[in-house]
Each structure stands twice: as structure tokens, then as C-alpha cells.
């Protein structure tokens, strides 16, 4: 008999000192243990997970306690201005100044208010074709009670994570690679198994959403530049302005007596509205501080490596 014929399955079965029926039953049992293993509940007291990475952190509406902007500045450039319904009152204030000088006998002086004269002037509409650049320095702005929509955070690397009190319910494991031989039982049921420790290569959780909210202590941004914005037109409400010119006086001097009439012109301006057109707005924010941020958060696509679990207890294991 050739070597190939001697190593055929039938010749090998015949050569074994075991009956063919027993070998057939062992084959059936081997096929049964390749079924799925169902674990009702696994409890882990504590463990560590290294290299924790989160694919996406979804953030809800954030409640911000206060927003503080420091050392801000803004500028309005290349604007045209139109002043509407401009009226002015030219106020002429009259004063009489006098001085009497009698030499060693004595000298006296004084000023008498002679009243004022109002001259109304209706200026109508005034157009300023090329208004100079206006720079505004804003030392500090406080905005309390903001609500902001937060963008999700992608590819968040959290490093290591300590786990405690982990529990997995209704866990199903494929038994591929698990090999049990020499067992003559149809079903296996373990009411309770305790493993002192176990090490896993990796763990993946598809989705985790904390029930509470994540409180951030605060955040700050520095030197934020807002790009220039073209502003087609902006109309202000009514406003007033006053200007006082230097005094003009007319006097007479007759030695003992000096008399002069002094006139103080003051212009009171009342503007119905002002329209700024074709302006370019730009702003710089020195420091932006966000305090007391509270927002709901959910994590998606969490993965980690080098999982170490201690004190694992399995309540029920069924093949």
C-alpha cells in the first residue's frame, strides 16, 4: 500500500483505537460550540483605556454666562454723509465790560450781561461728499446672557481615560477562533463566572451620550480681526451739536473810563437725521472672554486602544 493510501481519512479512522460512532459524536459537539455565545451582563469594577479618540463631538445650544470684549476698535472709512433737516440758531451773547480808573483814589471794573439775540437759520439738507475716516476705540463691552449654536468638534484626541463601574448588557460574541475539545456536553450554562483580570487589544463604542450637560469654565480669543464690511447706507436719529466761537468786542477809552461791548457767537445745530452711505466698516477685537459656558454634548465614534479591565464578573453565560 502506498503512503498516500495509508494517510487517507478512512485508513486513519480505521487505525485509531476508538469506535467510529464516538468520533462522529465528537465532531457534532465541535460544530455546536462554534455557535454564538450570549452573555447577559458583564460588570467591570475598574479599568484603563489608552489613546481615546472621538470622531465627532456634537454640541447643542450653549448658554454663555457673560461675554466680555476688551480693547476693541472700529473704523468707518470712505463714507459719504447727508445731514437732513438741519436747523441752526446763531446765539449772540452781549456783554458790557467797563473800567473806571481814578488813579490813587481808586479803580473799579465790572461786566454786565446785556442778554442774547437768537437768529434762526434753516439750512435744509447738507451733503458731505467725502467724510474723513472715523476711528472708534472701545475699551470694554460686557454682554450678559448669550445663547450660541456651537459647531461640532471633529477628530478629538482625549489621550487616556480611566474607567470605573463599567457594565455591558446583552453582549453577544462570535465564537470564531474559540476551540473547545474533549468535551462531551451539548449545552453549557454558567450562572456566574469571575475573572481576576483581563487585557484587551482595543475597544470601540459606537455612540455615547451623557445625560447631563458639560460645563466649561471659560474660553478666550485674542486679537480677532473682523474683515471690512461694505455698508450701503445707515441712517441715524436726530441729534444736536453746539459750537462757540471766540469773543468779538468793540470798545471806547476816554482815559478815566473804558467801555467795551463784547459779543459771544454760539451756534446751536439741530439735525433731523444723518445718512452714512458707501461706508466701509472694519473692527478689531483685542480680547474676547467667554465665561460660565453650559451646553449639552453627545459623542460619536469613540475608539481606544490597549484596554485593561480589572475584577470582571459575568452573571450568566450561555452557548
Amino acid at each position, binding site marked *: 500500500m502506498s503512503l498516500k493510501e495509508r494517510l487517507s481519512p478512512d485508513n486513519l479512522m480505521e487505525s485509531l483505537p476508538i469506535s467510529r460512532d464516538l468520533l462522529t459524536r465528537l465532531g457534532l459537539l465541535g460544530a455546536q460550540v462554534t455557535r454564538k455565545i450570549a452573555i447577559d451582563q458583564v460588570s467591570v469594577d475598574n479599568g484603563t483605556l489608552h489613546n481615546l479618540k472621538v470622531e465627532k463631538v456634537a454640541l447643542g445650544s450653549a448658554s454663555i454666562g457673560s461675554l466680555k470684549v476688551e480693547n476693541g476698535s472700529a473704523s468707518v472709512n470712505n463714507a459719504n454723509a447727508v445731514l437732513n433737516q438741519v*436747523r441752526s*440758531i446763531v446765539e*449772540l451773547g*452781549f456783554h*458790557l465790560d*467797563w473800567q*473806571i480808573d481814578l*488813579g*490813587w*483814589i*481808586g479803580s*473799579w471794573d*465790572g461786566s*454786565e*450781561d*446785556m*442778554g*442774547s*439775540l*437768537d*437768529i*434762526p437759520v434753516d439750512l435744509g439738507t447738507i451733503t458731505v461728499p467725502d467724510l474723513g475716516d472715523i476711528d472708534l476705540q472701545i475699551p470694554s463691552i460686557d454682554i450678559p446672557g448669550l445663547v450660541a449654536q456651537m459647531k461640532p468638534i471633529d477628530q478629538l484626541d482625549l489621550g487616556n481615560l480611566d474607567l470605573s463601574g463599567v457594565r455591558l448588557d446583552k453582549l453577544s460574541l462570535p465564537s470564531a477562533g474559540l476551540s473547545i475539545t474533549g468535551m462531551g456536553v451539548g449545552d453549557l450554562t454558567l450562572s456566574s463566572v469571575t475573572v481576576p483580570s483581563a487585557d484587551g487589544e482595543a475597544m470601540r463604542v459606537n455612540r455615547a451620550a451623557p445625560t447631563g450637560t458639560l460645563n466649561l469654565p471659560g474660553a478666550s480669543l485674542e486679537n480677532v480681526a473682523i474683515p471690512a464690511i461694505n455698508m450701503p447706507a445707515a441712517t441715524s436719529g*436726530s441729534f*444736536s451739536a*453746539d459750537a462757540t466761537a471766540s469773543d468779538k468786542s468793540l470798545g471806547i477809552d476816554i482815559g478815566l473810563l473804558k467801555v467795551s461791548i463784547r459779543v459771544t457767537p*454760539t451756534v*446751536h445745530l*439741530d439735525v433731523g437725521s444723518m445718512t452714512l452711505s458707501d461706508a466701509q466698516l472694519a473692527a478689531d477685537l483685542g480680547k474676547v472672554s467667554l465665561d460660565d459656558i453650559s451646553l449639552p454634548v453627545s459623542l460619536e465614534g469613540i475608539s481606544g486602544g490597549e484596554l485593561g479591565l480589572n475584577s470582571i464578573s459575568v452573571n450568566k453565560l450561555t452557548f
Partner: protein
Amino acid sequence: MSLSHKEFEKRWEQAHRKSRPQQKKSSIAPVIHLSVISVLDNYMSQLHKAVEGHALSKEECDAVCEKIAELKPLAKKADAKAAKYLKV
């Protein structure tokens, strides 16, 4: 003085009705206070200026000022008693 919008409207209406200056006082009458005491004080201050200008010696100035200082209380007393007759 800056005007509020309300004050501007009030003065705008008034300015269209009136064209004369608004006088704050009914009359202008400068008041001069003249008395023997003030004249004596002015005289002494002029003597001191003369000393500073080296037109008068300090001793001469002090001698005159001493006499004026003696005269001032007497003049004050007379002023108080005969005020209505000494009115300027």
C-alpha cells in the same frame, strides 16, 4: 451751553417771534463803592509802589503810612456816625 432738543424747539419758535435781544436785567447800572477808608488804602498802596520805583524812601513812606493807620479808625468811627451825610 448745550441745548436739548426740547430747548432748541422752544428757542426756535421764540426766535421767529422776537428779533430783540433778550435782556436778563431790566437796567445796566455799574455801582462804584467809594469811601475815605478805601481812598486811604489806595493811597498807601500807591506810596508802596513809589518806594518800589525808588521815587520815595522807605522811611518817608513808613512815616506817612503810620499817620494814615492812626487816621483810619477815627475815619471809620466818623463814617459810622455820619453815614447819611458822607454818602457818595
